[in-house]
């Protein structure tokens, strides 16, 4: 151990002691204050009856359920908005990023304007815009819905489409779809292997068959019954409705975050050496093949870490849904539950821990994906093959 190492250990120990001291001081202070003011402490309240209703619940919930259940409801709503948001923002971000690279001035300038306008507006305003302006002020009232046939209704209460009710064959049909997907993936892996070994054999007719199988089977097996939306006095008695609160949060956050993703996509593509493109050109790849096979795989490596950050931002920003009554974790648990129980420290620490865990898991998955992509080069070229 040299001098610097010793010094570093000293510094770090000092820092840890300092932090521990701080925590002890605050903890002691807190306990002393709450006991003086007759405020209880502990998580016992989680088993008490919640007593309030929540507008959007993914699993069953009644007012007679416990605060523990409200936590789960809020968490699921946060995850739902994050999930839809991440998918939308990725698709949009890629599209706009590629549009900005286009040689067509109209397309690239449209993309530029999209990015520069949207990313310079705070996300809260995006959310409020979609809710207060679009839903509450532009869309027609409930009874005068905008209609497309009997299929689609759009009004101030949300967007309603037909729902599908599973019939007897539903399980068998799901199994069929699952098998088809597995078969298609398996066939493409086989194809890859064959290409590497220099064998050429047509497999796509088989893939097409598995793709068509569920489509052909659907009318024969009739696994789902489609139920058209039907208006009753206060709501649609059937059909599926996406509520304006969820819609506003998801659309606002995905358009906002997609501007950052598109910039990441653009700069990652630009970071791929020009020689790669030129080499691809000289080998006679058509332009979309150049992008698909040469450019994007290389760009992905630089893309993933910053994109992960944007995903985390999106997840954390779903808490802005509170401003438009979206019942997410922050609103339901850190909002209503906190207020009904008065347990600020317990509730807030739970919510903070939960966001932390969601973020860590997301990074973990993204890092795993990143590693998987980087490792791919090992298939073709291992270290031993490099003549050094």
């Amino acid at each position, binding site marked *: 151990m040299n*001098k*610097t190492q010793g*010094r*570093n250990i*000293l*510094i770090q120990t*000092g*820092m840890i002691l*300092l932090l521990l001291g701080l925590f002890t001081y605050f903890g002691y202070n807190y306990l*002393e*204050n*709450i006991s*003086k*003011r*007759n*405020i*209880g402490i502990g998580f016992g309240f989680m088993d008490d009856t919640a*007593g*309030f*209703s*929540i*507008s959007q619940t993914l699993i069953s919930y*009644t*007012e*007679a359920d416990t605060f523990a259940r409200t936590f789960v409801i809020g968490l699921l709503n946060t995850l739902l908005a994050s999930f839809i948001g991440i998918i939308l923002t990725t698709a949009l971000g890629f599209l706009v990023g590629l549009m900005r690279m286009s040689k067509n001035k109209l397309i690239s300038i449209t993309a530029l304007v999209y990015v520069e306008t949207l990313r310079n507006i705070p996300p809260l305003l995006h959310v409020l815009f979609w809710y*207060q302006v679009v*839903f*509450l*002020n532009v869309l027609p*009232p*409930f009874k005068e819905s905008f209609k497309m046939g009997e299929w689609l209704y759009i009004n*101030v*209460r949300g967007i309603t489409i037909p729902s599908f009710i599973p019939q007897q064959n539903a399980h068998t049909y799901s199994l069929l779809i699952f098998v088809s997907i597995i078969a298609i993936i398996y066939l493409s892996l086989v194809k890859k292997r064959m290409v590497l070994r220099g064998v050429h054999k047509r497999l796509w007719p088989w893939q097409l068959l598995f793709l068509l199988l569920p489509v052909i089977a659907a009318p024969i097996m009739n696994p789902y019954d489609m139920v058209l939306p039907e208006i*009753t*006095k*206060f*709501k649609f008695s059937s059909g599926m409705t996406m509520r*304006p*609160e969820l819609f506003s949060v998801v659309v606002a956050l995905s358009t906002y975050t997609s501007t950052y993703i598109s910039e990441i996509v653009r700069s990652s593509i630009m970071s791929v050496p020009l020689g790669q493109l030129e080499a691809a050109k000289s080998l006679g790849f058509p332009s979309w093949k150049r992008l698909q096979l040469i450019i994007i795989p290389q760009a992905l490596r630089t893309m993933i870490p910053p994109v992960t950050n944007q995903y985390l931002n999106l997840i954390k920003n779903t808490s802005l849904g*509170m*401003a438009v*009554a979206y*019942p997410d974790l922050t*609103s*339901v648990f850190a*909002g*209503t539950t*906190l*207020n*009904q129980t*008065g347990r*600020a420290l317990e509730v807030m620490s739970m919510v903070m821990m939960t966001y932390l865990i969601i973020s860590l898991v997301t990074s973990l998955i993204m890092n795993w994906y990143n590693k998987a992509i980087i490792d791919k080069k090992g298939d073709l070229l291992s270290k031993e093959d490099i003549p050094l």
Partner: protein
Amino acid sequence: MIKDFLKKSLILPIAFIVMAVLFVSCGAKEAPAAGTETAAPVEESKSTLEIVKERGKIILGVTAGVPGYSAPDSEGKWQGFDVDLGRAVAAAVLGDADAIEYRPLSAKERFTALQSGEIDLLSRVTTWTATRDSELGVNFAGVNYYDGQGFMVAKDSGITSLADMDGATIAVQAGTTTELNLSDYFRKQGMELELITFEKNDQASAALEAGRADAVTSDQSQLYALRTKFKEPDNFIMLPEVISKEPLGPVVREGDDQWFDIVGWTLNVMLNAEEYGVTSANVDEMKSSSTNPNVKRMLGVEGGVAEGFGLDNDWGYNIIKQVGNYGESFDRNLGAGSPLNIERGYNALWVDGGLQYGMPVR
């Protein structure tokens, strides 16, 4: 190379030592000083009264803007029924009704603000309930307004009573007793309900105005106030049913009986003043000429009631002179003299058949 290394290895420890020294010195010198100012009630030695007197003003928690109860007027001066109660306490304690610093608080923030000592008094349409009294470390000092939870709907919706509302979407403010009462009521009646929970009452009423919700529910008093903000207030009506008791009143921190007494008795003085016909206009005359011993004690002409509270003898006089009696405050902010035009109803004095009853000042 070696230079760089030395630099790098030295910067950290130096920064660390500087930080540590700063921290320790701050902790040693400033923490107790800061403690007396912000987290003062934690210190047993000082009562809220002493702190308020030393500071020269009361820090009052109010709503961020419910017309009639507490809202800033066009000149930015806070006005309203709940503000008046705070002003009366300031008049009683400091002799100056204007010695107030206002803290607008949302429903969610109010108890934490009071618990943590950020405010001295919460005068902000807050319902007195058992849980709040027992678990939140707060005390309700009285009831300045008897309210009940009502419903507002669009006139053309065809809804005329609660029975018409099975399956309706109702907007409500987050973290209120309203939310619980509503769920309880629908559960009891076996009716379906979709509840959308907003941060603020304004947002909830905006959802009704836009047609996102079929009804908005809150304490009736607040619904009247919210309706005045609508573009076309006449298109909205109140349903006849009232589904809860909502006794609203001033709240103080638990553990300071003296301060609790002062706030409660300030309200009693305002109620008694109305009962005995003492108003801000005639209080000077009453002080010199009244023969009613109750009035004499209240205005500090006779007896030593004030000493028991740790206040000056003219506290009652100051309240009525500067703020007025209960009836004056009600008329000015909520009643006939205001845009809300709410009936006295339960809030009439007991002698007029209402529930408001000022404890005797003797």
